[in-house]
């Protein structure tokens, strides 16, 4: 039996070049997505109220305002311009800044411009940047906790399927999934902060004091992580059990690999894929504001800001947070897609 020579060389989809090409494709797709998101957000915030007969200008100045000032506001916000002009200004505001003007009343809004709060007349962008680190810290800290504990618990449960540990962990996980944040959050506050007095539940910015920040964040982290760890433990367990039944795991054992290596190398690598997918979506959504957690623990994050804005119909703030959330989901998914390509060579073809 001779060696068959194939005419073309082997297809190359293994190297770093393939990952780079894949990355460029994903980046391009993300940019297109961003434009679509901005358009959709514009429609929701400026067109839908118009069709529904709600006057944005009068919601800015208040119901009792005289028609003249409503008209002035309408002109300044450009609400009477043709829609395409409005869309253009909206885009321009986000990327290069825009100028609101009505007669002699000129306000320049630097990029990225999401407008001004209807209630406090503050520029929206600084409000977002002030609050963003709080939410980011909450989301990332909780993610580390839930990844470590959730995945570890899931793997152990899978390896000890049917044992007391497995059943116990899965009951706790069921509790974690079912109990709402405002219950577990308030309970933890009641016990550790008011009851035992171990933790002073106040939020301290990281820039002021590291230990103070840790003290303020620990309960929110644990509360949020409990919910997610429960979900991750269940997903990890199910995936791990499925992977352990795969033929290539049997092959790994047939090679004479130690069982620890079979699990930690061959099985874990495959188990990571669905976990990563979930992580991308969850982190993205959380960075847009963990409304329940931030409200329960009075954390001055995006979630709290958007909740207040909804209560007071402060449209620009809601709009800003919506865009930030979309962007966060977009970036998180982009990162996940890239990691995906690193883990699974077959994805690089997509």
């Amino acid at each position, binding site marked *: 039996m001779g*060696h*068959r020579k194939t005419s073309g*060389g082997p297809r190359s989809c*293994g190297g770093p070049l393939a990952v780079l090409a894949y990355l460029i494709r994903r980046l391009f797709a993300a940019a297109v997505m961003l434009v679509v998101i901005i358009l959709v957000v514009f429609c929701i915030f400026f067109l839908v109220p118009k069709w529904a007969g709600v006057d944005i200008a009068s919601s800015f100045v208040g119901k009792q305002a005289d028609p003249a000032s409503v008209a002035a506001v309408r002109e300044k916000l450009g609400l009477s311009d043709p829609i395409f002009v409005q869309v253009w200004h909206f885009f321009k505001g986000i990327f290069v800044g825009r100028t609101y003007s009505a007669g002699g009343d000129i306000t320049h809004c630097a990029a990225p411009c999401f407008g001004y709060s209807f209630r406090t007349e503050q520029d929206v962008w600084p409000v977002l940047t002030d609050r963003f680190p709080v939410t980011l810290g909450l989301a990332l800290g909780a993610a580390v906790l839930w990844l470590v504990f959730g995945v570890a618990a899931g793997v152990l449960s899978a390896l*000890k*399927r049917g044992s007391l540990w497995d059943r116990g962990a899965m009951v706790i996980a069921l509790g974690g999934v079912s109990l709402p944040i405002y219950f577990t959050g308030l309970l933890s506050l009641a016990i550790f902060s008011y009851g035992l007095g171990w933790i002073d539940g106040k939020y301290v910015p990281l820039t002021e004091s590291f230990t103070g920040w840790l003290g303020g964040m620990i309960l929110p982290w644990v509360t949020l992580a409990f919910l997610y760890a429960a979900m991750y433990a269940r997903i990890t367990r199910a995936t791990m059990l499925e992977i352990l039944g795969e033929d*290539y795991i049997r*092959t790994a054992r*047939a090679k004479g*690999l130690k069982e620890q290596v079979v699990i930690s190398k061959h099985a874990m690598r495959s188990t990571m894929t669905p976990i990563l997918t979930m992580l991308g979506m969850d982190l993205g959504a959380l960075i847009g504001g963990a409304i329940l957690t931030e409200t329960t623990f009075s954390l001055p994050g995006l979630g709290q800001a958007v909740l207040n804005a909804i209560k007071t119909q402060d449209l620009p703030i809601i709009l800003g947070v919506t865009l930030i959330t979309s962007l966060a989901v977009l970036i998180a998914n982009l990162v996940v897609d890239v990691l995906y390509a690193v883990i699974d060579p077959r994805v690089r073809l997509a």
Partner: protein
Amino acid sequence: MTELSKSGAAVGEPTSTSPAPTSFLEVRDLKVHFPTDDGLVKSVDGLSFKLEKGKTLGIVGESGSGKSVTSLGIMGLHTAGQYGKRKAQISGEIWLDGTELLSADPDEVRKLRGREMSMIFQDPLSALHPYYTIGQQIVEAYRIHHDVDKKTAKRRAVEMLDRVGIPQPDKRVDNYPHEFSGGMRQRAMIAMSLVNNPELLIADEPTTALDVTVQAQILDLIRDLQKEFGSAVIIITHDLGVVAELADDILVMYGGRCVERGPAEKVFYEPRHPYTWGLLGSMPRLDREQQERLIPVKGSPPSLINIPSGCAFNPRCPYADIPKDNVTRTVRPELTEVGSQHWAACHLTPEQRERIWTEEIAPKL
């Protein structure tokens, strides 16, 4: 139900300490039972055979006859990594080159896996890890048993890929399994199993997942490599054509037991068990006169929880009523010698079988 509990007890008994055999591989009274909610599944129920180096044993039987369970049992893969499931109950003796595997320390058996004995699986796509390159997987297999650096191991991987007929092995070594065709993938799998020069190679349906055109190439390759390495080969298949090409000896399994075993030409040309006749009758052949239709073995494989009493094949056997006193349904036939090195387990007398074979079966094949 007494039957069930009796053999259940037998499984728990410690293995006897009979002397080490002289054969390279000897399996004695192997039983592999799986407890399930529905009862004890007796996948392999008392199987014995011997195999010498340089020889090929073909294990033949339909799905669920215990072929694969036997091979995984030899490899020790029923006990490795069974998480939380009820453990397989294995008894008997498996002697590999003077070592009894079932009573040996699991870690010792693990060290033998991949080095002394290795396995080729049915579907090379699912048997190779999709996230690692072919090279990484072969390098890993080599480095478990050889204390060498990655570079040396990779050279060895390229050499093996070249040996199994993969073109441009130095480039293909960095490809992932999904970038290989089915036949190439099975070649890579074979390269991986042979990277440590194992003395026992178990091929579990190595061609079933492949194109017919590629099947012959893979079988040729296995035969060539066996000649080169001088290893003992067990080839497991439901395809008699495959064993006809490769095997020195054939073992026919039915319901977890051996029903006929002997040299390949004997089993092919003078089979002495009705089930073997059935297998031969259901095999398409181009070397004989075209006759009307293939003759399937009627009925379906037996339940391994409630194996028919007496001869397990009796519900499907056209000759079950010939022996007197309903003996086929009450007494389990033992393997008896029907020729030199040729054994069969059947209640029909050798004369009856010879007559049925020469008068009724052989002319129709």
